[in-house]
């Protein structure tokens, strides 16, 4: 049902009562999911333009210049609610949706990343969701031949009952072959190609715009789409062939709000109207009515605008690829969205009212108060504390996950998964580096610093591989915005992210907002989760440092300043005090640290490099000890910090570099704080902190880090 206020506006603007089909179109297009009603004013704080940005937010995907005539397409989406109701199909179609957004720009999808957030794996239900969400992503991505090259898997109680599935897709296109969703010319034909339309996914957009109820599994199953990656793969190849042929005038994938959404948005962007003959839509089921045909979110469908003389070419292409293709309408001068079905006019809506008429507003906000936990006592056994942090599922090796993804198809993946960021070659030695995720616990305790830290941390992941951030996309996952304290989290996380993006000169080129992530079953809202995906450029993919130590006798340099910042840390969480302490503050000279690291890495004197973040220095050192150990002394940087603070603080802007030439690296780092803390070698990690000595064998590290894999393989 349309809210009373919305109906009033519609009646006033249309000068009449909308009929049922029209009301259904408004209900879906004016949903939070499609119209960003309570987020649009806040999203204005993002800087969305830059030297390299060709197309920013608003199209199917953003376009960023790579060089030599090539551009990158970038998009990010969530598929949270469907993945709770049907984890395999929900996550699979999440991949499918964002991939089609990339195709719709005329780009070939070349990489995926998936930041995922789950309830802890100590209940059968959470295990089930985890296992099948991973399988759904793999099942879809592997089949269409797009490698999942990086991700994040984060576990916390507050994602029980509402896991998050976010997907980033990167595409590659020739700049002169770009296609947009802006319709070009009245009289051009609209061709629908891909799967048939059925009753699956009815009302998905409005389903995504409310809380998840306990009975969602049964009640909302009809809102879930079923994925068909085989058809998607055919659609990729068909689209790229049609685009290369130059016949595609504009293009839009069918996602939220189905055919009604895609067709009206295309026309509206071009200041045109559109006339759809719903009878012409290839249907999977008998007896569908106009509303169902227009709103169904059946997957693997794309709309193409072509000139009348190219209709035959498109239909023949559909036949080549064994896909359904049909001319379902045309663009009109009259700026109305009209749908005809069984010789009857079903809708006649002013098009801009439908696509842009939803009122947006800033909601009331009040600070979210967190009840602080006491600071835990000293650890006692420091070695055990290190192993516990490593074995926490948030920190453990994710190889059980990424092994299920074909991360090497398309032979671009230079750095295998598990390191700081993905490295994909693009042309010759030039490539891109990709990172994704956020820190929900930091954001929960301090939304502003959490938002800011999200980009700082991802930019560091790129920088330690010599990558300079080009652009970012976000997926802002929050609870119910109608609650003032949730809206406050949302607002301040956005502000923090926006400030960091400006400071680091990385424009925010697109994204998605997912609100109402609350579980009636658990009476919880998710942690504020401003996940992002960042793409950077790498000059020489064959000269990127390893994420693990590569040989003995190298000096290990700690870059950045370690402060007593354990708030929201993995260590405090494991000690049962997730809400103790203050979260890390992004240092004022963050941009200088990032820039200095990029220059230093590119100079080629660093053999291994790793960002220091979650789990602190202890975790970062362990992660670098794959085959070669290291001996470090932290006494020099201790100041008045405790051993726990030194080892586990998650202060931003830090990295570990291993080098044969510490003087050269030190000179390159210049006045960025850095200190040699040790030397590689041996078969263990040895840390001296004041008068404490910890020694952890490489096997113990490996064993601790295998906790997630062990759990899943049992």
């Amino acid at each position, binding site marked *: 049902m349309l809210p009373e206020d919305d109906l009033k506006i519609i009646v006033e603007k249309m000068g009449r009562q909308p009929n049922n089909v029209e009301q259904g179109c408004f209900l879906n297009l004016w949903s939070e999911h499609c119209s960003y009603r309570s987020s649009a004013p806040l999203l204005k704080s993002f800087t969305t333009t830059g030297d390299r940005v060709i197309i920013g937010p608003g199209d199917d995907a953003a376009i960023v210049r790579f060089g030599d005539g090539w551009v990158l397409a970038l998009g990010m989406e969530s598929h949270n609610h469907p993945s709770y109701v049907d984890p395999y199909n929900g996550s699979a179609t999440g991949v499918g949706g964002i991939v089609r957004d990339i195709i719709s720009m005329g780009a070939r999808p070349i990489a995926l990343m998936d930041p995922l957030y789950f309830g802890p794996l100590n209940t059968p239900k959470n295990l089930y969701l985890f296992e099948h969400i991973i399988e759904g992503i793999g099942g879809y991505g592997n*089949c*269409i*031949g797009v490698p999942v090259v990086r991700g994040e898997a984060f576990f916390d109680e507050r994602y029980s009952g509402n896991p998050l599935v976010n997907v980033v897709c990167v595409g590659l296109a020739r700049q002169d072959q770009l296609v947009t969703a802006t319709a070009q010319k009245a009289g051009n034909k609209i061709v629908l190609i891909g799967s048939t339309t059925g009753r699956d996914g009815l009302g998905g957009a409005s389903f995504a715009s409310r809380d998840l109820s306990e009975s969602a599994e049964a009640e909302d199953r009809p809102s879930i789409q079923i994925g068909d990656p*085989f058809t998607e793969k*055919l659609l990729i190849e068909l689209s790229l062939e049609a685009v290369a042929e130059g016949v595609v005038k504009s293009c839009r994938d069918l996602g939220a709000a189905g055919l009604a959404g895609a067709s009206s948005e295309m026309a509206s962007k071009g200041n045109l109207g559109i006339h759809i003959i719903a009878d012409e839509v290839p249907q999977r089921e008998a007896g569908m009515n106009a509303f169902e045909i227009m709103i169904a979110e059946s997957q693997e469908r794309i709309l193409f605008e072509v000139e009348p003389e190219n209709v035959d070419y498109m239909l023949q292409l559909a036949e080549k690829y064994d896909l359904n293709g049909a001319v379902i309408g045309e663009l009109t001068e009259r700026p109305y969205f009209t749908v005809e079905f069984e010789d009857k006019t079903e809708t006649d809506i002013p098009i801009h009212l439908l696509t842009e008429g939803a009122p947006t507003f800033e909601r009331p906000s009040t600070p979210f108060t967190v009840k602080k936990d006491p600071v835990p006592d000293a650890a006692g056994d420091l070695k055990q504390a290190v192993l516990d942090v490593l074995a926490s599922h948030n920190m453990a090796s994710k190889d059980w996950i990424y092994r299920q993804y074909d991360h090497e*198809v398309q*032979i671009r993946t230079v750095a295998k998964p598990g390191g700081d960021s993905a490295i994909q070659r693009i042309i010759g030695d030039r490539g891109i580096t990709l990172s994704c995720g956020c820190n929900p616990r930091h954001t929960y305790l301090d939304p502003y610093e959490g938002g800011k830290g999200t980009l700082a941390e991802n930019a560091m992941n790129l920088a330690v591989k010599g990558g300079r951030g080009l652009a970012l996309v976000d997926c802002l996952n929050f609870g119910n915005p109608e609650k003032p304290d949730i809206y406050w989290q949302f607002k301040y996380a956005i502000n923090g992210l926006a400030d960091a993006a400006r400071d680091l000169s990385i424009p925010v080129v697109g994204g998605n907002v997912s609100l109402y992530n609350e579980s009636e079953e658990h009476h919880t809202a998710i942690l504020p989760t401003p996940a992002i995906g960042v793409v950077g450029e790498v000059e020489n993919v064959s000269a990127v440092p390893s994420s693990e130590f590569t040989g003995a006798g190298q000096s290990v340099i700690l870059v950045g300043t370690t402060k007593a910042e354990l708030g929201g840390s993995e260590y405090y969480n494991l000690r049962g005090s997730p809400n103790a302490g203050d979260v890390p503050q992004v240092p004022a000279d963050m941009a200088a640290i990032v820039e200095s690291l990029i220059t230093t890495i590119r100079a080629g004197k660093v053999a291994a490099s790793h960002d220091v973040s979650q789990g602190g220095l202890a975790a970062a050192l362990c992660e670098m000890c794959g085959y070669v150990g290291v001996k470090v002394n932290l006494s020099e940087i201790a100041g008045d910090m405790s051993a726990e603070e030194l080892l586990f603080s998650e202060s931003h802007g830090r990295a570990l570099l291993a080098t044969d030439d510490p003087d050269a690296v030190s000179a390159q780092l210049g006045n960025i704080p850095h200190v040699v803390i040790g030397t590689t070698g041996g078969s263990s990690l040895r840390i001296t902190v004041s008068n404490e000595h910890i020694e952890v064998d490489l096997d113990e590290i490996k064993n601790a880090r295998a906790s997630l894999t062990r759990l899943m393989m049992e």
Partner: protein
Amino acid sequence: MTVAIIQFGGSNCDNDVLHVLQDVLGIDAELVWYKEEKLDDYEAAVIPGGFSYGDYLRSGAIASRTPIMDAVRKMADNGKPVMGICNGFQILTESGLLEGALTTNSYPKFKCEWSYLRVENTNTPFTSMYEKGQVIRIPIAHKDGKYYHDDPSLQQLEDNNQVVFRYVDENGNPTEAVNPNGSRHNIAGITNKTGNVLGMMPHPERASETIMGADDGLLMFKSMIESGRK
């Protein structure tokens, strides 16, 4: 010579093989859509990996029944080299060009990782440039890669030297621990009796440039091209 790379709906390593043949080795190669019925102009064929027909029904089952496979069979009968990688291997067993079957991995999930292979037979058009017993590194990526063949037949396969690649550890030992999918006898790749049709689960095209981690797979394509020229 020109190599045909057969493209089915859902093939997804087609462009990767094309890249290695064309850009790395400088060989003429063409993508051939499965609706073509003749392959007379080609000296060799590669059936690349992927998910032909989405692996619906059974991996490789639908592709094996397309008309282009008759043309592939004709090439095989004429002694031309035919190489099936991953899904290509599944298609070759489904079409009867190779013996045995590929079933779901013993741990029934997709597995993408690097493996060591031992070259068991160098007397084939695909392995002539390797040394017998050489251990090479090539990645796998599959869910249905567990090679199965009946008992007397499996021994015949071994006796005929049709087992070309076996999963081994880095020292060349075919242990249970390094068998990634539960294949019988750690089998990673086999040929037909005459040796000109090869099927293998690992992806040599992903190990054909050092930047990708290893170039051990390149010799396979080079061997094939050499033999195709003869």
